Protein backbone atom coordinates (compact mmCIF):
# COMPACT_ATOMS: atom_id res chain seq x y z
CA UNK A 1 0.00 0.00 0.00
CA UNK A 2 1.60 3.19 -1.11
CA UNK A 3 -0.77 5.69 0.36
CA UNK A 4 0.29 7.32 3.58
CA UNK A 5 -1.59 9.65 5.85
CA UNK A 6 0.56 12.39 4.38
CA UNK A 7 -0.85 11.69 0.96
CA UNK A 8 -4.38 11.87 2.17
CA UNK A 9 -3.79 15.18 3.83
CA UNK A 10 -1.82 16.60 0.97
CA UNK A 11 -4.42 15.88 -1.63
CA UNK A 12 -7.70 17.75 -1.78
CA UNK A 13 -10.61 15.46 -2.60
CA UNK A 14 -11.74 15.57 -6.20
CA UNK A 15 -15.33 16.54 -6.85
CA UNK A 16 -17.68 13.70 -6.05
CA UNK A 17 -19.16 11.91 -9.02
CA UNK A 18 -16.53 13.25 -11.38
CA UNK A 19 -14.43 10.42 -12.77
CA UNK A 20 -11.43 10.47 -10.51
CA UNK A 21 -8.24 11.29 -12.26
CA UNK A 22 -5.22 9.40 -11.14
CA UNK A 23 -3.79 11.89 -8.72
CA UNK A 24 -0.18 12.76 -9.09
CA UNK A 25 1.77 11.86 -6.00
CA UNK A 26 4.02 14.52 -4.70
CA UNK A 27 7.51 13.63 -3.75
CA UNK A 28 7.53 16.26 -1.03
CA UNK A 29 4.24 16.76 0.80
CA UNK A 30 3.63 20.35 1.70
CA UNK A 31 4.36 20.47 5.42
CA UNK A 32 2.28 23.60 5.87
CA UNK A 33 -0.82 21.47 5.58
CA UNK A 34 0.16 19.80 8.85
CA UNK A 35 0.12 22.99 10.91
CA UNK A 36 -3.58 23.20 11.73
CA UNK A 37 -4.24 19.47 12.35
CA UNK A 38 -1.35 19.37 14.82
CA UNK A 39 -2.50 22.58 16.44
CA UNK A 40 -5.97 21.09 16.94
CA UNK A 41 -4.46 17.99 18.45
CA UNK A 42 -2.39 20.07 20.84
CA UNK A 43 -5.48 22.10 21.80
CA UNK A 44 -7.39 18.91 22.47
CA UNK A 45 -4.58 17.59 24.66
CA UNK A 46 -4.38 20.90 26.53
CA UNK A 47 -8.15 20.94 27.13
CA UNK A 48 -7.95 17.43 28.58
CA UNK A 49 -4.86 18.09 30.70
CA UNK A 50 -6.33 21.24 32.24
CA UNK A 51 -9.60 19.50 33.00
CA UNK A 52 -11.72 21.59 30.63
CA UNK A 53 -12.60 18.35 28.87
CA UNK A 54 -13.55 15.57 31.27
CA UNK A 55 -12.48 12.03 30.38
CA UNK A 56 -16.12 10.93 30.64
CA UNK A 57 -16.89 13.16 27.66
CA UNK A 58 -13.73 12.74 25.65
CA UNK A 59 -10.39 11.28 26.63
CA UNK A 60 -7.18 13.06 25.80
CA UNK A 61 -5.25 12.12 22.64
CA UNK A 62 -2.55 10.63 24.81
CA UNK A 63 -5.03 8.37 26.67
CA UNK A 64 -6.56 7.38 23.34
CA UNK A 65 -3.14 6.40 22.07
CA UNK A 66 -2.55 4.31 25.21
CA UNK A 67 -5.97 2.68 24.85
CA UNK A 68 -5.11 1.89 21.25
CA UNK A 69 -1.88 0.23 22.29
CA UNK A 70 -3.59 -1.66 25.11
CA UNK A 71 -6.49 -3.00 23.05
CA UNK A 72 -4.07 -3.93 20.29
CA UNK A 73 -1.80 -5.77 22.72
CA UNK A 74 -4.63 -7.65 24.37
CA UNK A 75 -5.80 -8.83 20.97
CA UNK A 76 -9.22 -7.21 21.42
CA UNK A 77 -8.72 -4.69 18.66
CA UNK A 78 -7.31 -7.19 16.20
CA UNK A 79 -10.20 -9.54 16.75
CA UNK A 80 -12.80 -6.79 16.37
CA UNK A 81 -11.00 -5.58 13.31
CA UNK A 82 -11.05 -9.01 11.69
CA UNK A 83 -14.74 -9.52 12.40
CA UNK A 84 -15.71 -6.16 10.94
CA UNK A 85 -13.51 -6.53 7.87
CA UNK A 86 -15.04 -9.93 7.21
CA UNK A 87 -18.56 -8.48 7.40
CA UNK A 88 -17.77 -5.71 4.95
CA UNK A 89 -15.88 -8.10 2.71
CA UNK A 90 -18.72 -10.60 2.54
CA UNK A 91 -21.40 -7.97 2.18
CA UNK A 92 -19.42 -6.16 -0.49
CA UNK A 93 -18.68 -9.31 -2.46
CA UNK A 94 -22.32 -10.28 -2.38
CA UNK A 95 -23.65 -6.83 -3.24
CA UNK A 96 -21.06 -6.22 -5.95
CA UNK A 97 -21.83 -9.59 -7.52
CA UNK A 98 -25.52 -8.80 -7.68
CA UNK A 99 -24.83 -5.28 -9.01
CA UNK A 100 -22.51 -6.62 -11.67
CA UNK A 101 -24.91 -9.26 -12.93
CA UNK A 102 -27.95 -6.97 -12.88
CA UNK A 103 -26.07 -4.00 -14.28
CA UNK A 104 -24.61 -5.95 -17.18
CA UNK A 105 -27.90 -7.61 -18.09
CA UNK A 106 -29.89 -4.37 -17.81
CA UNK A 107 -27.21 -2.50 -19.74
CA UNK A 108 -26.86 -4.97 -22.57
CA UNK A 109 -30.32 -6.26 -23.22
CA UNK A 110 -33.37 -4.17 -24.00
CA UNK A 111 -35.67 -6.54 -22.19
CA UNK A 112 -33.20 -6.81 -19.35
CA UNK A 113 -33.41 -3.04 -19.03
CA UNK A 114 -37.20 -3.07 -19.12
CA UNK A 115 -37.47 -5.76 -16.48
CA UNK A 116 -34.60 -5.00 -14.12
CA UNK A 117 -34.19 -1.26 -14.14
CA UNK A 118 -37.61 -0.08 -12.85
CA UNK A 119 -37.67 -2.19 -9.67
CA UNK A 120 -34.05 -1.33 -8.90
CA UNK A 121 -34.74 2.37 -9.41
CA UNK A 122 -37.75 2.13 -7.10
CA UNK A 123 -35.96 0.16 -4.41
CA UNK A 124 -33.00 2.48 -4.34
CA UNK A 125 -35.21 5.33 -3.15
CA UNK A 126 -35.86 3.36 0.05
CA UNK A 127 -33.63 4.56 2.89
CA UNK A 128 -31.92 1.23 3.23
CA UNK A 129 -30.70 1.92 6.76
CA UNK A 130 -34.34 2.17 7.75
CA UNK A 131 -34.76 -1.46 6.82
CA UNK A 132 -32.88 -2.59 9.93
CA UNK A 133 -36.04 -3.42 11.95
CA UNK A 134 -37.27 -5.63 9.11
CA UNK A 135 -33.87 -7.28 8.76
CA UNK A 136 -33.81 -8.07 12.45
CA UNK A 137 -37.24 -9.68 12.12
CA UNK A 138 -36.14 -11.64 9.06
CA UNK A 139 -32.60 -12.57 9.92
CA UNK A 140 -32.43 -12.23 13.70
CA UNK A 141 -29.53 -10.42 15.30
CA UNK A 142 -26.63 -12.54 14.08
CA UNK A 143 -24.28 -11.87 11.21
CA UNK A 144 -26.85 -12.00 8.41
CA UNK A 145 -28.61 -8.66 8.90
CA UNK A 146 -25.27 -6.82 8.98
CA UNK A 147 -23.99 -8.53 5.86
CA UNK A 148 -27.27 -8.01 4.02
CA UNK A 149 -27.29 -4.37 5.03
CA UNK A 150 -23.79 -3.86 3.61
CA UNK A 151 -24.69 -5.81 0.48
CA UNK A 152 -27.77 -3.70 -0.06
CA UNK A 153 -25.85 -0.48 0.42
CA UNK A 154 -23.24 -1.61 -2.10
CA UNK A 155 -25.62 -2.89 -4.76
CA UNK A 156 -27.40 0.32 -5.73
CA UNK A 157 -24.57 2.77 -6.43
CA UNK A 158 -22.58 0.09 -8.20
CA UNK A 159 -25.54 -1.08 -10.27
CA UNK A 160 -26.42 2.44 -11.36
CA UNK A 161 -22.90 3.20 -12.50
CA UNK A 162 -22.33 -0.10 -14.29
CA UNK A 163 -25.67 0.24 -16.02
CA UNK A 164 -25.07 3.77 -17.23
CA UNK A 165 -21.45 2.97 -18.11
CA UNK A 166 -22.61 0.24 -20.45
CA UNK A 167 -25.48 2.27 -21.86
CA UNK A 168 -23.18 5.17 -22.68
CA UNK A 169 -20.79 3.14 -24.80
CA UNK A 170 -19.77 5.05 -27.93
CA UNK A 171 -21.79 3.53 -30.79
CA UNK A 172 -19.14 4.63 -33.25
CA UNK A 173 -16.58 2.40 -31.59
CA UNK A 174 -18.99 -0.52 -31.59
CA UNK A 175 -19.64 0.06 -35.28
CA UNK A 176 -15.95 0.33 -36.07
CA UNK A 177 -15.26 -3.07 -34.53
CA UNK A 178 -18.31 -4.52 -36.27
CA UNK A 179 -16.72 -3.41 -39.54
CA UNK A 180 -13.56 -5.21 -38.43
CA UNK A 181 -15.58 -8.41 -38.17
CA UNK A 182 -16.08 -8.56 -34.41
CA UNK A 183 -18.88 -10.79 -33.20
CA UNK A 184 -21.37 -9.60 -30.60
CA UNK A 185 -19.45 -11.38 -27.90
CA UNK A 186 -16.11 -9.91 -28.98
CA UNK A 187 -17.60 -6.43 -29.04
CA UNK A 188 -18.83 -6.96 -25.50
CA UNK A 189 -15.40 -8.03 -24.28
CA UNK A 190 -13.26 -5.58 -26.22
CA UNK A 191 -15.45 -2.49 -26.47
CA UNK A 192 -18.55 -2.39 -24.28
CA UNK A 193 -17.11 -3.59 -20.99
CA UNK A 194 -13.82 -1.67 -21.20
CA UNK A 195 -15.71 1.52 -21.97
CA UNK A 196 -17.81 1.00 -18.83
CA UNK A 197 -14.76 0.71 -16.58
CA UNK A 198 -14.33 4.41 -15.64
CA UNK A 199 -17.96 4.75 -14.60
CA UNK A 200 -17.81 1.43 -12.76
CA UNK A 201 -14.84 2.64 -10.73
CA UNK A 202 -16.79 5.73 -9.73
CA UNK A 203 -19.52 3.37 -8.55
CA UNK A 204 -16.98 1.23 -6.74
CA UNK A 205 -15.78 4.16 -4.70
CA UNK A 206 -19.27 5.29 -3.85
CA UNK A 207 -20.34 1.80 -2.88
CA UNK A 208 -17.32 1.23 -0.64
CA UNK A 209 -18.11 4.43 1.20
CA UNK A 210 -21.67 3.25 1.71
CA UNK A 211 -20.43 -0.20 2.76
CA UNK A 212 -18.53 1.18 5.76
CA UNK A 213 -21.44 3.38 6.72
CA UNK A 214 -23.83 0.43 6.58
CA UNK A 215 -21.48 -1.67 8.65
CA UNK A 216 -21.13 0.97 11.35
CA UNK A 217 -24.88 1.44 11.59
CA UNK A 218 -25.48 -2.31 11.60
CA UNK A 219 -22.85 -2.96 14.25
CA UNK A 220 -23.94 -0.09 16.44
CA UNK A 221 -27.51 -1.30 16.55
CA UNK A 222 -26.54 -4.71 17.72
CA UNK A 223 -23.39 -6.78 17.78
CA UNK A 224 -21.61 -9.31 19.92
CA UNK A 225 -18.27 -8.93 18.14
CA UNK A 226 -16.49 -6.49 15.88
CA UNK A 227 -15.58 -2.84 16.12
CA UNK A 228 -19.17 -1.82 16.84
CA UNK A 229 -19.25 -4.20 19.76
CA UNK A 230 -15.94 -2.84 21.03
CA UNK A 231 -17.37 0.68 20.91
CA UNK A 232 -20.70 -0.20 22.50
CA UNK A 233 -19.00 -2.17 25.20
CA UNK A 234 -16.70 0.75 25.96
CA UNK A 235 -19.72 3.00 26.27
CA UNK A 236 -21.03 0.84 29.11
CA UNK A 237 -17.85 1.57 31.07
CA UNK A 238 -17.55 5.21 29.99
CA UNK A 239 -14.30 4.37 28.20
CA UNK A 240 -14.34 7.28 25.75
CA UNK A 241 -10.72 6.50 24.89
CA UNK A 242 -11.67 3.07 23.51
CA UNK A 243 -14.63 4.58 21.65
CA UNK A 244 -12.29 7.00 19.91
CA UNK A 245 -9.90 4.18 19.09
CA UNK A 246 -12.78 2.32 17.41
CA UNK A 247 -13.75 5.41 15.44
CA UNK A 248 -10.20 5.95 14.30
CA UNK A 249 -9.98 2.36 13.09
CA UNK A 250 -13.24 2.78 11.17
CA UNK A 251 -11.86 5.91 9.55
CA UNK A 252 -8.57 4.25 8.72
CA UNK A 253 -10.37 1.33 7.10
CA UNK A 254 -12.45 3.71 5.01
CA UNK A 255 -9.33 5.54 3.89
CA UNK A 256 -7.61 2.26 3.14
CA UNK A 257 -10.33 0.93 0.87
CA UNK A 258 -10.53 4.29 -0.86
CA UNK A 259 -6.80 4.19 -1.42
CA UNK A 260 -7.09 0.72 -2.92
CA UNK A 261 -9.67 1.97 -5.43
CA UNK A 262 -7.47 4.95 -6.24
CA UNK A 263 -4.65 2.56 -6.94
CA UNK A 264 -6.86 0.49 -9.21
CA UNK A 265 -7.99 3.64 -10.98
CA UNK A 266 -4.45 4.80 -11.46
CA UNK A 267 -3.61 1.56 -13.19
CA UNK A 268 -6.83 0.90 -15.07
CA UNK A 269 -7.31 4.45 -16.34
CA UNK A 270 -3.77 5.20 -17.39
CA UNK A 271 -5.01 5.83 -20.91
CA UNK A 272 -6.84 8.91 -19.70
CA UNK A 273 -3.67 10.59 -18.58
CA UNK A 274 -3.36 12.95 -15.67
Amino acid at each position, binding site marked *: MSLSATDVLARPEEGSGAPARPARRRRLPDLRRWISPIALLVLWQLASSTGVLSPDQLSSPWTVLQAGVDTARSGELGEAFAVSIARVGLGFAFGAGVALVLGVIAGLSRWGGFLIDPPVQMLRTLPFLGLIPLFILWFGIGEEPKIVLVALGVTFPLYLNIHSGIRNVDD*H*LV*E*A*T*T*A*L*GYTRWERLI*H*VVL*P*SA*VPQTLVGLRQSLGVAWLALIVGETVNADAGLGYLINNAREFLRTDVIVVGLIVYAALGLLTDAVVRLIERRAL*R*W*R*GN
Partner: protein
Amino acid sequence: MARELIARVHGLTKRFGDRAVLSDVDTEIGRGEFVALLGRSGSGKSTLLRILAGLDSAIEGEARVDGAVSVAFQQPRLLPWRRVWRNVVLGLRDRGRDRTLAERALAEVRLADHADAWPRTLSGGEAQRVSLARALVREPDLLLLDEPFGALDALTRLAMHRLVEDLWTEHRPGVLLVTHDVDEALLLADRVLVLGEGRIIAEHVLDHPRPRALSDHIDIRARVLADLGVTDHAIA
Protein backbone atom coordinates in the same frame (compact mmCIF):
# COMPACT_ATOMS: atom_id res chain seq x y z
CA MET B 1 -10.26 -9.43 -71.11
CA ALA B 2 -12.99 -8.53 -68.67
CA ARG B 3 -11.65 -6.75 -65.62
CA GLU B 4 -11.90 -8.52 -62.31
CA LEU B 5 -14.58 -7.07 -60.08
CA ILE B 6 -14.18 -6.70 -56.34
CA ALA B 7 -17.58 -5.19 -55.62
CA ARG B 8 -20.83 -5.40 -57.48
CA VAL B 9 -23.95 -3.42 -56.71
CA HIS B 10 -27.06 -4.29 -58.64
CA GLY B 11 -30.56 -2.89 -58.34
CA LEU B 12 -29.77 -1.68 -54.84
CA THR B 13 -32.55 0.10 -53.01
CA LYS B 14 -32.39 1.21 -49.40
CA ARG B 15 -35.36 2.64 -47.58
CA PHE B 16 -35.59 4.33 -44.23
CA GLY B 17 -39.29 4.08 -43.53
CA ASP B 18 -41.05 5.36 -46.66
CA ARG B 19 -38.10 7.32 -47.94
CA ALA B 20 -35.78 5.62 -50.42
CA VAL B 21 -32.24 6.86 -49.77
CA LEU B 22 -30.87 4.72 -52.57
CA SER B 23 -33.06 3.63 -55.42
CA ASP B 24 -32.05 1.04 -57.95
CA VAL B 25 -28.32 1.76 -57.87
CA ASP B 26 -26.03 -0.16 -60.20
CA THR B 27 -22.28 0.06 -60.08
CA GLU B 28 -19.14 -1.98 -59.75
CA ILE B 29 -15.59 -1.56 -58.53
CA GLY B 30 -12.70 -3.36 -60.18
CA ARG B 31 -9.78 -4.93 -58.37
CA GLY B 32 -7.29 -2.21 -57.56
CA GLU B 33 -9.54 0.53 -58.90
CA PHE B 34 -9.82 3.86 -57.08
CA VAL B 35 -13.39 5.08 -57.21
CA ALA B 36 -14.64 8.32 -55.68
CA LEU B 37 -18.28 8.71 -54.78
CA LEU B 38 -19.40 12.31 -54.76
CA GLY B 39 -22.66 13.75 -53.60
CA ARG B 40 -24.24 16.43 -51.52
CA SER B 41 -25.09 15.80 -47.89
CA GLY B 42 -27.96 13.37 -47.64
CA SER B 43 -27.45 12.00 -51.15
CA GLY B 44 -27.05 8.50 -49.78
CA LYS B 45 -23.32 8.14 -50.39
CA SER B 46 -22.47 7.13 -46.84
CA THR B 47 -25.39 4.72 -46.85
CA LEU B 48 -23.93 2.97 -49.89
CA LEU B 49 -20.57 2.72 -48.15
CA ARG B 50 -22.13 1.32 -44.99
CA ILE B 51 -23.94 -1.31 -47.03
CA LEU B 52 -20.69 -2.37 -48.71
CA ALA B 53 -19.02 -2.43 -45.28
CA GLY B 54 -21.61 -4.93 -44.12
CA LEU B 55 -22.95 -2.52 -41.51
CA ASP B 56 -26.42 -2.39 -43.00
CA SER B 57 -27.99 -5.49 -44.43
CA ALA B 58 -31.65 -4.45 -44.61
CA ILE B 59 -31.60 -3.79 -48.34
CA GLU B 60 -33.36 -4.67 -51.56
CA GLY B 61 -31.25 -5.77 -54.49
CA GLU B 62 -27.68 -6.91 -54.46
CA ALA B 63 -24.48 -5.54 -52.93
CA ARG B 64 -21.63 -7.99 -53.05
CA VAL B 65 -17.98 -7.73 -52.16
CA ASP B 66 -15.61 -10.55 -53.10
CA GLY B 67 -12.82 -10.37 -50.59
CA ALA B 68 -11.81 -8.63 -47.42
CA VAL B 69 -13.17 -5.18 -46.63
CA SER B 70 -11.74 -2.47 -44.41
CA VAL B 71 -13.26 0.85 -43.45
CA ALA B 72 -11.78 4.15 -42.34
CA PHE B 73 -14.39 6.54 -41.03
CA GLN B 74 -14.50 10.31 -40.81
CA GLN B 75 -13.60 10.02 -37.15
CA PRO B 76 -10.66 7.72 -36.42
CA ARG B 77 -12.65 5.66 -33.92
CA LEU B 78 -9.66 4.29 -32.05
CA LEU B 79 -10.24 2.47 -28.79
CA PRO B 80 -8.94 5.00 -26.26
CA TRP B 81 -7.88 2.33 -23.78
CA ARG B 82 -5.61 0.54 -26.23
CA ARG B 83 -2.20 1.80 -27.15
CA VAL B 84 -1.73 2.88 -30.75
CA TRP B 85 -0.10 -0.34 -31.92
CA ARG B 86 -2.85 -2.46 -30.34
CA ASN B 87 -5.40 -0.37 -32.20
CA VAL B 88 -3.62 -1.03 -35.46
CA VAL B 89 -3.90 -4.81 -35.14
CA LEU B 90 -7.40 -4.67 -33.68
CA GLY B 91 -8.91 -6.31 -36.72
CA LEU B 92 -6.43 -9.17 -36.99
CA ARG B 93 -7.70 -12.26 -35.29
CA ASP B 94 -4.79 -14.57 -34.75
CA ARG B 95 -2.18 -11.84 -35.08
CA GLY B 96 -3.94 -9.41 -32.77
CA ARG B 97 -0.83 -9.10 -30.65
CA ASP B 98 1.69 -9.03 -33.45
CA ARG B 99 3.66 -5.94 -32.63
CA THR B 100 6.07 -6.27 -35.53
CA LEU B 101 3.19 -6.19 -37.94
CA ALA B 102 1.69 -3.17 -36.21
CA GLU B 103 4.98 -1.32 -36.30
CA ARG B 104 5.44 -2.01 -39.97
CA ALA B 105 1.97 -0.63 -40.68
CA LEU B 106 2.65 2.41 -38.51
CA ALA B 107 5.90 3.04 -40.34
CA GLU B 108 3.94 3.16 -43.58
CA VAL B 109 1.81 5.99 -42.24
CA ARG B 110 4.95 7.59 -40.76
CA LEU B 111 4.01 7.01 -37.14
CA ALA B 112 6.58 4.38 -36.24
CA ASP B 113 7.59 6.20 -33.06
CA HIS B 114 4.01 6.44 -31.78
CA ALA B 115 3.44 2.72 -31.29
CA ASP B 116 3.21 3.00 -27.51
CA ALA B 117 1.25 6.23 -27.37
CA TRP B 118 -2.32 6.43 -26.12
CA PRO B 119 -4.80 7.60 -28.79
CA ARG B 120 -5.69 10.63 -26.63
CA THR B 121 -2.23 12.05 -27.19
CA LEU B 122 -2.46 12.04 -31.00
CA SER B 123 -3.43 14.98 -33.19
CA GLY B 124 -6.43 14.62 -35.48
CA GLY B 125 -4.26 13.85 -38.49
CA GLU B 126 -2.13 11.34 -36.60
CA ALA B 127 -5.19 9.53 -35.28
CA GLN B 128 -6.60 9.38 -38.80
CA ARG B 129 -3.33 7.87 -40.02
CA VAL B 130 -3.55 5.21 -37.31
CA SER B 131 -7.06 4.51 -38.52
CA LEU B 132 -5.71 4.11 -42.05
CA ALA B 133 -2.98 1.78 -40.81
CA ARG B 134 -5.61 -0.27 -38.99
CA ALA B 135 -7.61 -0.58 -42.21
CA LEU B 136 -4.62 -1.42 -44.41
CA VAL B 137 -2.93 -3.92 -42.12
CA ARG B 138 -5.80 -6.27 -42.91
CA GLU B 139 -4.68 -6.24 -46.54
CA PRO B 140 -8.19 -5.51 -47.79
CA ASP B 141 -9.33 -6.15 -51.32
CA LEU B 142 -11.70 -3.24 -50.88
CA LEU B 143 -10.88 -0.19 -48.79
CA LEU B 144 -13.85 1.97 -47.91
CA LEU B 145 -13.05 5.57 -46.98
CA ASP B 146 -15.95 7.52 -45.49
CA GLU B 147 -14.90 11.17 -45.77
CA PRO B 148 -11.71 10.33 -43.92
CA PHE B 149 -10.23 13.79 -44.40
CA GLY B 150 -13.37 15.77 -43.67
CA ALA B 151 -12.48 16.64 -40.10
CA LEU B 152 -8.87 17.60 -40.79
CA ASP B 153 -7.41 21.03 -41.35
CA ALA B 154 -6.56 21.99 -44.93
CA LEU B 155 -2.81 21.44 -44.72
CA THR B 156 -3.14 18.06 -43.04
CA ARG B 157 -5.69 17.09 -45.64
CA LEU B 158 -3.22 17.76 -48.46
CA ALA B 159 -0.61 15.58 -46.79
CA MET B 160 -3.20 12.86 -46.29
CA HIS B 161 -4.13 12.90 -49.98
CA ARG B 162 -0.55 12.19 -50.90
CA LEU B 163 -0.28 9.50 -48.24
CA VAL B 164 -3.43 7.71 -49.36
CA GLU B 165 -2.28 7.79 -52.95
CA ASP B 166 1.10 6.33 -51.97
CA LEU B 167 -0.50 3.59 -49.90
CA TRP B 168 -2.90 2.76 -52.67
CA THR B 169 -0.06 2.57 -55.19
CA GLU B 170 1.82 0.30 -52.83
CA HIS B 171 -1.00 -2.06 -51.86
CA ARG B 172 -3.44 -1.68 -54.72
CA PRO B 173 -6.71 -2.33 -52.91
CA GLY B 174 -9.91 -1.39 -54.62
CA VAL B 175 -10.97 1.90 -53.04
CA LEU B 176 -14.32 3.57 -52.61
CA LEU B 177 -13.74 7.10 -51.36
CA VAL B 178 -16.91 8.83 -50.21
CA THR B 179 -16.45 12.57 -50.20
CA HIS B 180 -18.10 15.87 -50.97
CA ASP B 181 -14.80 17.47 -51.95
CA VAL B 182 -14.67 17.56 -55.75
CA ASP B 183 -10.97 18.42 -55.90
CA GLU B 184 -10.10 15.53 -53.64
CA ALA B 185 -11.99 13.15 -55.92
CA LEU B 186 -10.33 14.53 -59.05
CA LEU B 187 -6.86 14.25 -57.52
CA LEU B 188 -7.16 10.68 -56.36
CA ALA B 189 -9.70 8.64 -58.29
CA ASP B 190 -9.66 6.60 -61.49
CA ARG B 191 -13.37 7.11 -61.77
CA VAL B 192 -15.83 9.50 -60.18
CA LEU B 193 -19.42 8.59 -59.48
CA VAL B 194 -21.90 11.34 -58.70
CA LEU B 195 -24.84 10.40 -56.54
CA GLY B 196 -27.98 12.51 -56.54
CA GLU B 197 -31.31 11.73 -54.96
CA GLY B 198 -30.43 8.11 -54.44
CA ARG B 199 -29.25 7.43 -57.99
CA ILE B 200 -25.94 7.56 -59.78
CA ILE B 201 -26.50 10.54 -62.04
CA ALA B 202 -23.07 10.80 -63.62
CA GLU B 203 -19.83 8.96 -64.06
CA HIS B 204 -16.48 10.35 -65.19
CA VAL B 205 -13.30 8.48 -65.98
CA LEU B 206 -10.10 10.25 -64.97
CA ASP B 207 -7.03 9.17 -66.88
CA HIS B 208 -4.49 11.84 -66.08
CA PRO B 209 -1.24 10.32 -64.79
CA ARG B 210 -0.38 10.69 -61.11
CA PRO B 211 0.58 12.59 -59.11
CA ARG B 212 -1.93 15.07 -60.36
CA ALA B 213 -2.30 18.78 -59.92
CA LEU B 214 -5.58 20.52 -59.23
CA SER B 215 -5.64 21.86 -62.79
CA ASP B 216 -5.30 18.46 -64.46
CA HIS B 217 -9.00 17.74 -64.77
CA ILE B 218 -10.30 21.25 -65.01
CA ASP B 219 -12.75 20.31 -67.78
CA ILE B 220 -14.23 17.43 -65.81
CA ARG B 221 -14.33 19.58 -62.68
CA ALA B 222 -16.85 21.93 -64.28
CA ARG B 223 -18.97 19.00 -65.40
CA VAL B 224 -18.90 17.36 -61.98
CA LEU B 225 -19.87 20.62 -60.36
CA ALA B 226 -22.73 20.91 -62.83
CA ASP B 227 -23.78 17.36 -61.92
CA LEU B 228 -23.86 18.46 -58.31
CA GLY B 229 -26.01 21.44 -59.21
CA VAL B 230 -23.29 24.06 -58.85
CA THR B 231 -22.96 26.33 -61.89
CA ASP B 232 -19.86 28.25 -62.85
CA HIS B 233 -21.73 31.39 -62.11
CA ALA B 234 -22.42 30.28 -58.58
CA ILE B 235 -18.80 29.51 -57.76
CA ALA B 236 -17.24 32.43 -59.58
